């Protein structure tokens, strides 16, 4: 009996001693239990710092030609070398992170807003509306993603806004399906019945009961989706349908001059690709670990490819 009391008292004492805030402890637990996820998180953090602080991190502006430094190999002066227009590659890679992060976050925010609205309404209203929405999502998802986006971009023309719009519609379609599933299972809970019995209106039920309970799913989808969007953006930029030059996008740096000079200056075709791979890898690792912690039901689904 005495043992029991002690066993309960101990953690309470431990909690009082701890000076570390609760959120920091949650992060530490996450790192200990999901080392791969922590590595992913670290990569994502580095990328965010590069994107936000590009003006301080990069030694040169992204479009500045440095006199007499054409296609220098990587070294002490230019860490990653210079390109065919004598621009410092390290600076361009750092600013490239800003492009990826901007497109990624804007697309995911827009895409997730659409997906959450469509997914929850589809689950909540049900019936013919649900059926119709799901058939449209089915048809949309049976297209190869690059085919849809290229077709849209061909007509809209290249540009940052068009890129974000078309990518977010694509992300929204596949995510809406998963969010609908999560909302359906949330709606099975007894507290939904309790809410209805208390006389809550539809809007209140959706906003106070359904939405908060599918947020874990939305966060996981957004993290993995960020990797997918960065990959898709780089593919489109590689094909010349992405962010217009001279702004440095990793995908665009690998096409055009990156490819035509790659035998004389291999580093030009190396670093941007490494940037894309690391960034997507980081978001995928983090997303995978977050999924295991926040929403184990999703295990075995999804991946980097938008679908």
């Amino acid at each position, binding site marked *: 009996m005495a043992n029991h009391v002690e066993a309960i008292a101990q953690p309470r004492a431990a909690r009082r001693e701890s000076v570390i805030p609760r959120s920091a402890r949650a992060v530490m637990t996450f790192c200990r239990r999901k080392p791969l996820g922590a590595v992913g998180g670290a990569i994502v953090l580095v990328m965010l710092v590069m994107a936000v602080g590009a003006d301080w991190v990069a030694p040169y502006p992204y479009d500045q030609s440095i006199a007499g430094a054409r296609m220098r190999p990587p070294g002490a002066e230019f860490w990653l070398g210079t390109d065919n227009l004598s621009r410092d590659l390290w600076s361009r890679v750092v600013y490239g992170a800003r492009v990826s992060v901007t497109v990624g976050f804007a697309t995911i925010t827009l895409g997730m807003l659409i997906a959450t609205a469509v997914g929850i309404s589809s689950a909540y209203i049900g019936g013919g509306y649900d059926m119709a929405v799901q*058939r449209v999502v*089915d048809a949309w998802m*049976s297209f190869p993603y690059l085919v849809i986006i290229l*077709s*849209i971009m061909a007509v809209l023309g290249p540009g940052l806004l068009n890129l974000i719009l078309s990518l977010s519609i694509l992300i929204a379609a596949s995510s809406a399906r998963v969010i609908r599933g999560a909302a359906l299972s949330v709606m099975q809970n007894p507290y939904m019945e309790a809410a209805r019995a208390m006389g809550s209106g539809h809007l209140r039920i959706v906003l106070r009961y359904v939405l908060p309970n599918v947020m874990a799913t939305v966060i996981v989808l957004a993290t993995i989706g960020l990797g997918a969007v960065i990959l898709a953006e780089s593919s489109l930029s590689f094909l010349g349908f992405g962010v217009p030059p001279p702004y440095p996008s990793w995908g665009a740096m690998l*096409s055009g001059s990156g490819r035509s000079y790659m*035998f004389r200056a291999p580093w030009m075709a190396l670093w941007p690709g490494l940037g*894309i791979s690391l960034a997507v890898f980081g978001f995928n690792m983090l997303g995978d670990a977050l999924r295991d912690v926040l929403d184990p039901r999703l295990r075995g689904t999804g991946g980097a490819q938008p679908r």
Partner: protein
Amino acid sequence: MVLGHVASVAQHRDAETLRGLTPMKRYLLKRLLVAIPSLLIASLIVFTLPRLLPGDAVQLMLEEKAYGKDLDDLRHKLGLDRPVYTQYFHWLGDVARGSLGESLWTKRAVAEELRRRLPVTMLLSAMATVFAVLIAIPIGVLAAVRADSLRDYVARSAAILGLSVPGFWLATLVILLPAIWWGWTPNVSFTEFGQDPAQHVLQFLLPAAILGVASAAGIMRLTRAMLLEVLRQDYVRTAWAKGLDEGVVVLKHSLKNALIPVVTILGIQFAQIFSGTVIIESIFGLPGLGRFLFDAILQRDYPVIQGINLLVVSMIVVLNLIVDLFYAVLDPRIRYS
């Protein structure tokens, strides 16, 4: 809503008329009937996509060289001066007769061009799929059997890495690195089957392997997750309790059931692989559908874009149908429900 209603009515009617058939045949017929509305919706999207978006296709096609009369002529020739629904049914009628129109630039029949290029893309995609399955399933099994071991961590990280590396960069490295290290570059000119059959197949190996990497990663993750699920089942414990060999328990009792969901995603994988061919065919100089699509998009060749999209979507619908049938063969519960 209307389509849902149609589908449910169709299903109801099935049940009436198909009562005499075996469950397997009834299942097959039901899947076939469901495929028809999917194809129709897909054809509608393929058709309306270029028309929904702002901008006049004709204006874009003729650029600044156009005069008012030219614009009208071209519009009439393409049938763009008629109401949209008339255009759609006219186009659908043409498609049913096997005509996809002609390219705006080369004036060649689109159907003929597609027939010529389809084998290239099919061979490339098939090889990529085989490649993906051959590496993904063994690694997925090894990772699941020793879950949370070092081997599992390495396999999972490698899979995520495979999903993260863009195909076009991998292709660049494959061309670049051997050139720097050993002064060897892969051949990027196309060899026809008639010229040299062995070389014709060999030239697909490298691009197919690159295309297969991303799919392999996805299939590996699914195989691992599904096998882990199955290994927790009671009948697997029974198999262990009977004293069966690890190989028999894993491969014979568990893997067969774990692979059922893996088969279903092969349809989605094909869509992904096709996306990849757009870039990979351009890099390796293969005259397939992907490269044709990319060129058509650059030239705003609408009949070609529509033709390729329709062909690809139809192939995916048919592939999903085959996957469903395969599913029934693998899982008796579906056959007899």
